[in-house]
């Protein structure tokens, strides 16, 4: 890897690059899925290549290649330089990078059991046991999946950095779907979107107890078919930690991406309502709300030692007791404010340009508990597990649906309700938050489908979250 990187850096500088960095990447992904008691697919994907990024005449150029031989690397370097020169003709202002020290380092995700060392037999046996647990009358589709990722990368720059990292991810999950009488109801465990995934080893799967939760979600899916519709009106809303995590992702993670604020994503992902003159002044949420970007959080999908610009992992407060205090930044965007980079730049793969991405955007734990929140709620709903999500391009107007809900009356869950939706405006919503559960109910969750950038990049990001309560929220059935 080092020889490839050195050759590429040399070739780019010979071609005229004033700055160059590259990532030499080897990535292996394994997937096991079962459906309705049968193995659906067992597959392995190996991906290898090199991405080279240059600055020439103040403009960026990027090229990706799978050819690791001398002529291949030289061609990629020349192409990146040519692209940068073409871009420079229509660039607005020269790119300036915030300083970052040259680093030589190695990092490997702490793993107790390598997920690739666990036999397929064991994986299939575990999924089939969970599938059998979901096999109850009324459930029409049962699915289970296990996934493992090993991402081995060398980052090298013309400033002297050489950083080798191996990130290991392990995940798994179940879905039970029941159909009948004009309804389709699904329940997932531990999270929606197919599976819960973390930077850790097979121990994550052993802790999940998939089989032990299969029966519960299957029963819930069937019960939802005949449940009453979610009540309608403005009421108290309590979210489970998984839905709180997605709420943080959409309404805090994305709007604090500084490239969105600067218009880089205006034609696609959108912009942000959080403008720089609001920093340190804007009351984003109540005092119960503190949200950090923490690339050092154990097990998060945004956990690493250095980002894809060679900047060290950091913890930054985005929202401090309700006050808007920080952005997710890159070397380029931070330089515009004469600040150091926050170290949040990542690329999906070798052939994609590194962009500002969420690391682990964590809702810090409070002091309450779900039981206490419910016990002190006169009228409201408790909602679990995302089913639908949508938010406008400035990240203000949102509507979420969850798989399941319970109506709360006089401090008790009184009945199951189906098809719940809630909607609101981001600052109004977070300012209505009056309780966040404590550390014992705070968990790290993985989002494996975060899309951004063109060409599109799907990133794996983390969210530590705990159940939380909001007052006077618009709730209704779908």
């Amino acid at each position, binding site marked *: 890897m080092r020889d490839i990187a050195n050759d590429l850096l040399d070739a780019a500088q010979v071609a005229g690059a004033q700055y160059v960095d590259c990532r030499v990447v080897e990535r292996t992904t394994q997937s096991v*899925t079962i459906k309705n008691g*049968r*193995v*659906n*697919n*067992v*597959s*392995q*994907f*190996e*991906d*290898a*290549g090199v*991405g080279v990024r240059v600055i020439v005449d103040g*403009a*960026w*150029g*990027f*090229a*990706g*290649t*799978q050819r*690791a031989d001398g002529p291949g690397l030289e061609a990629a370097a020349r*192409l990146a330089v040519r*692209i940068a*020169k*073409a*871009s420079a*003709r*229509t*660039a*607005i202002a020269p790119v300036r990078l915030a300083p970052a020290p040259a680093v030589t380092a190695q990092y490997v995700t702490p793993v107790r059991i390598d997920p690739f060392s666990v*036999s*397929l*037999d064991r994986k299939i046996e575990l999924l089939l046991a969970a599938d059998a647990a979901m096999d109850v009358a009324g459930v*029409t589709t049962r699915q289970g999946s296990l996934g493992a990722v090993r991402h081995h990368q060398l980052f090298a720059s013309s400033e002297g950095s050489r950083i080798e990292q191996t990130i290991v991810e392990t995940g798994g999950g179940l879905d039970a*779907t029941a*159909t009948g009488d004009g*309804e*389709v109801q699904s329940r997932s465990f531990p999270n929606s979107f197919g599976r819960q995934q973390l930077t850790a080893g097979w121990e994550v799967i052993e802790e999940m107890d998939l089989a032990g939760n299969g029966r519960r979600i299957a029963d819930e899916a069937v019960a939802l078919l005949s449940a009453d519709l979610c009540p309608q009106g403005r009421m108290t809303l309590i979210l489970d930690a998984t839905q709180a995590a997605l709420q943080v992702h959409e309404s805090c993670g994305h709007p604090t991406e500084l490239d969105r604020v600067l*218009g*880089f*994503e*205006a*034609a*696609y992902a*959108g912009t942000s309502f959080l403008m720089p003159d609001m920093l340190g002044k804007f009351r984003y949420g109540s005092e119960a709300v503190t949200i950090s970007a923490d690339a050092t959080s154990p097990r998060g999908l945004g956990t690493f030692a250095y980002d894809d610009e060679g900047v060290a992992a950091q913890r930054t407060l985005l929202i401090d007791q309700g006050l808007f205090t920080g952005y997710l930044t890159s070397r380029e965007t931070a330089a515009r404010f004469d600040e150091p980079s926050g170290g949040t730049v990542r690329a999906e793969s070798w*052939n994609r340009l590194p962009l500002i991405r969420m690391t682990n955007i964590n809702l810090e734990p409070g002091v309450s508990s779900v039981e206490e929140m419910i016990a002190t709620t006169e009228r409201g709903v408790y909602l679990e597990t995302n089913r*639908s999500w*949508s938010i*406008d*391009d400035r990240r203000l*107007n949102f*509507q979420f649906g969850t798989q399941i809900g319970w109506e709360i009356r006089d401090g008790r869950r009184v009945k199951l309700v189906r*098809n719940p*939706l809630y*909607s609101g405006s981001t600052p109004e919503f977070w300012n209505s938050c009056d309780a966040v559960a404590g550390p014992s109910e705070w968990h790290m969750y993985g989002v494996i489908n975060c899309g951004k950038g*063109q*060409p599109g990049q799907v990133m794996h990001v983390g969210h530590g979250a705990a159940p939380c309560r909001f007052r006077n929220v618009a709730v209704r059935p*779908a």
Partner: protein
Amino acid sequence: VTEALRSHDELLAMAEDILRRAPGGAEAEVTVTETATALTRFANGGIHQSVADRSLRLRLRLVCDGRSGVAEIQTTADEAAQRLVDTAESIRSRSPEGDPVHPIHPDGGPDSEIGYSPVTEAVTPEQRADAVAAVCIAADAAGQQAFGTYETTATSMAMMSTLGLSRAARHSVGELIAVCRGDDGSAYGARHAVDASSIDVAGLASEVTERCARNQGATAVDPGTYEVVLSPYAVAEMLEYLGLVGLGGLAVLEHRSFMRFGERLMSEAVTITDDVTRSELAPLPFDGEGATTKPVTIIDRGICAAVVHDSVTAARSGVPTTGHSFPQPNSEGPLPRYLCLASGESDPASMIAACARGLLVTRFWYVRPVHPLQTIITGMTRDGTFLIENGRVARPVRDLRFTQSIVDALCDIRALGSQRLASRGYFGACLAPWVHLGHFTFSS
């Protein structure tokens, strides 16, 4: 600017080499895909990102003794073919016995390349920069700033199997997307073409700057149910979601689809097809199993006619595959790739003139299913939403959230445009006209 994509013969030779290494007695299916992508992004009136990459992907599916294994490698390394075979066989041999999906026999379909242009593959970084500059200059002249992308993609794909399958095809797409922003509002437009040189850059710049000039100083309008005049960009988004939630064979088999065959669920004006013969959609002639993709009439004058199939759902449904498979095995099932809504005889000006009070919508954004079986989706309007009063566009309005059943909306068609626009879809492309709907619900 870079080497051309490998020829069909080269890709088929690579596939044949992999097949030759496959263990004896196994059914083997090989897919070799090479893709070249180049994309220039612009923001605030200038280029800020520009990239190019090329990737070669090899996929092998082995089936033998009731066991199946799949391996994929994205590399040009010399040892890739053998490693692919070894990995697939290792997985296959360690998988439990079951009832795996088998590769299909060749169906004799043609490998026509109606969706490919070598011009698109050859577009240079300088040509992309020139097109972007033209949009930026037009925006600047209108007192606006331009944002967007100019992307070219060319893909070459070959499939071969031990059952005699051997086919290859290419397709290409050029796409220019422009968003212009003024002091207090923005507008969107896009063009999609097999031959990137046919994209009318000046025409797109004119469309978007004119729309942006009209979309300044938007004021709020109350949520509620309105007549709507939807641009093809918005209609395409709606069609794509209809396809996702209900137009695949697996959705029907799993009782997740709204389709009730033989029943009229929409206006007689609605005919929806999946049409692989439309060259402007840059179609590939076969699917992820190597089956020939066939044109399918899905909604015939409002009546539910058919859904798309792969070999698995086709067998379970007792019909032939329509050639809409993702690579097998998969849990998603087949989905439409080239959805087309039939045109009518109207045009946007006539639709607006016929609307007493309604909303003119340029684009939907962040659309997600809320209740798939009832085809209820939610999303936002974006980059150009206008109030129509007494047959004319009265003023721009702030973006609204809609929550609406697609089938219900398509029951109340007032008019369809005579011209259709091609745009990118989730798995292929989409062809849609302007549409005037009698009601559409905006929830906040």
